[in-house]
């Protein structure tokens, strides 16, 4: 057999490559698509289980309208607060080596790995632990006039406690990916650390901030356990959509709970699409 025989011609290689490509994309699509299909199937099942009438009924209820409003506002506040905390913390963890850094790094993961109910219970204990005659919640409630437990600030704090951990992780990765040499050059040109951060690092982290904001918002939307324990599920007061689903489910009103779940999905999709649009690469 000659050498020429053993090497396929360009002409004969094309079909094989096409077959190979088809197998590649087919396999990858099948494996990856199965998850997408699962999500679509779940949403389809939800939609099949409820009717437009149930969704309309849910939307017309003043309690649900209140829950929608509180959900939107509390998730947004929680997400913005998360960014305010996550940006400096992510930057410090990414750029500097300081004593106890590993401990801070570990502590940030605790809200992520902790069971949600435990997080709520920990908040509850924190606000009601007595130090002599002092109790944080009593002081806030009676002296400051700003009750937190079983009140709207409690909802936001419960959401923030978890969402912020995800935002910090995102912001740290963001700053890890930004070359620190630009900031170092800025400092050699006379910039202070503040100026290096604000002029050089922060503008470059814009996309990371939007991503962290998105993650924090979405995480807050789905938060349930800490809110139930720390802020309660009082109709017209601390009821957000996730607790509405629980309350409707607990009395067997499956149609309403599915309707509210679909509302949450719709809200999440709208917010995520808007944020993704902000995040999108501008066309050159």
């Amino acid at each position, binding site marked *: 057999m000659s050498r020429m025989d053993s090497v396929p011609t360009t002409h004969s290689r094309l079909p094989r490559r096409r077959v190979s490509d088809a197998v590649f994309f087919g396999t990858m699509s099948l494996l990856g698509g199965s998850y997408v299909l699962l999500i679509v199937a779940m949403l389809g099942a939800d939609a099949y289980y409820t009717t437009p009438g149930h969704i309309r009924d849910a939307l017309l209820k003043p309690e649900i309208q209140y829950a929608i409003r509180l959900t939107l*506002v509390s998730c947004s506040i929680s997400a913005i607060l998360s960014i305010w905390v996550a940006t400096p913390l992510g930057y410090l963890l990414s750029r500097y080596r300081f004593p106890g850094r590993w401990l801070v790094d570990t502590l940030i993961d605790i809200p992520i790995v902790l069971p949600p109910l435990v997080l709520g219970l920990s908040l509850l204990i924190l606000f009601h632990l007595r130090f002599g005659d002092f109790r944080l919640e009593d002081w806030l409630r009676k002296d400051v006039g700003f009750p937190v*437990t079983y009140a*709207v600030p409690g909802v936001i704090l419960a959401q923030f406690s978890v969402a912020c951990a995800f935002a910090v992780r995102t912001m740290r990765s963001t700053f890890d990916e930004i070359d620190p040499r630009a900031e170092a050059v800025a400092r050699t040109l006379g910039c202070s650390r503040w100026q290096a951060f604000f002029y050089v690092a922060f503008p470059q982290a814009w996309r990371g901030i939007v991503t962290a904001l998105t993650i924090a918002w979405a995480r807050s939307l789905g938060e349930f356990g800490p809110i139930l*324990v720390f802020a309660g599920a009082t109709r017209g007061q601390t009821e957000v959509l996730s607790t509405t689903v629980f309350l409707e489910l607990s*009395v067997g009103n499956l149609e309403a709970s599915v309707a509210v779940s679909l509302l949450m999905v719709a809200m999440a999709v709208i917010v995520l699409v808007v944020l993704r649009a902000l995040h999108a690469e501008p066309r050159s």
Partner: protein
Amino acid sequence: MNRSLTILIASVAALAGLVWLTPSGRMRPGLPAAKTDAQGNTTAPPLVVFCAASNRAVMEAVRADYEAEFGVLVNVQYGPSQTLLANLEVSGAADLYLPADDSYLDLGRDKRLIVETIPVAEMHAVLAMAKDSTTKVASLADVLASDLKLVQANPEAAAIGKLTKDLLTEAGTWDAVRERTIAFKGTVNEVANDVQIGAADVGIVYDAVLTTYPKLIAVRVPELANLSAHIAIGVASSSEQPQRALHFMRYLSAPEKGLKRYEEFGFQTVAGDPWTDAPELTLYAGSMLRPAIERTLAEFQDREGVRVTTVFNGCGILVAQMKAGHVPDAYFACDSEFMQQVHDLFPAPTDVSQNELVILVPKGNPQQIKSLLDLSKEGLRVGIGHEKQCAMGWLTQKTLKEGGVQTEVMKNVTVQTPTGDMLVNQMRAGSLDAAVAYLSNAAGSAKELDAIRITNIPCSVATQPYAVAQSAKYPRLAERLQQRLKSAESQSQFESQGFVWKARPATAAVAPKE
């Protein structure tokens, strides 16, 4: 820097806008304006109720009724019973607690988190099946013999699961039922949800739960006939407004108010006191008990926001009044003998205290009286209770007779009074040399009188029972008064007056926070 500054300013502005948009947390459609004082401030903070999520539908109806009727804001927090109890323990932020099963109230009481409780309703265990199910089931054995998918609540997490396990273990069928159970769920509602969705064919649930599941039917089976749960509501010991909490609790448990709603939602209600904004109790009590119970009665009235009309007198007189038709809501007798005489009116007495007869003499005992026999000394002026008018007199006669000195002592008796207080007054006035009265009668006169103990005559000790009348208009309220009279605070009052405590240690009614 411009971009960074823009982001910062935008985020601050967004946050400020969101805070402004934050709902006030006081949304209540149709709620009448809360009562306000002259300065326009709301005078009363809202009532906070921790309520099991399974009772949400009925509680919302009761809450709406109550708010509309009294203009009082009621914040109800729903959740799993155990979670709410843990929250109550940590925060103490509730006035009332209504769990799915009264066993949680027992737990709360053990931890001194709960004071008063009132039963509300009962639920019975049934099998939940889809209405369109083609399989006919008449017993749990039918389920085991079929290929139906069975789900039930987790014995570790839900009361019905534990009760089912206990009942079936006793019947010897638990292992077989457990084997056939495809899933154990966290709550009874999750069991019903599974059957409604079709994930299971049969579930063990409470009948009342199915009221909100129109697609399911309840199948009563003999194996679960004796399995029921009791729903009750309790006042949190941490409540800073117990009177208002008890007002709501009485409303919830009144047949024409809250219980009516519970019936509408498929619960089997228990007997409750009729609704009155401020009910009134009538209590007949032996005179000897007045110093021991007066303070407790005042505290009870203050805490409950009710009125207790008391009639103190010799028990003989009180019994005569009752036999004449004036039956009070509750009777606290000086001695069980007098309770026995009206047993048909007060069928379930409970002993609270004991009091012993003593010989009262002036301080220093100038006549050197050491026993009953010494009361027969020549020229001694002796006072005793009237045997027809009070338990003390009746008991004195019995004691003198038992001691074999009745005839001798009676020769010296110059006065017989209907109450022991009168004897004490006469002793202090110097018109008597000795008197036979209860130790408690002399509790406030230790500076003027000495008490000589009567030994070796067991019948000289009187036992004081309390009972609620069969005809009481507010039996639950009268029972709560009983609990209060048996509390630790009441015990110290009795003991300070020379009584001996007989009631069960006051774990049933812990001291409320005042």
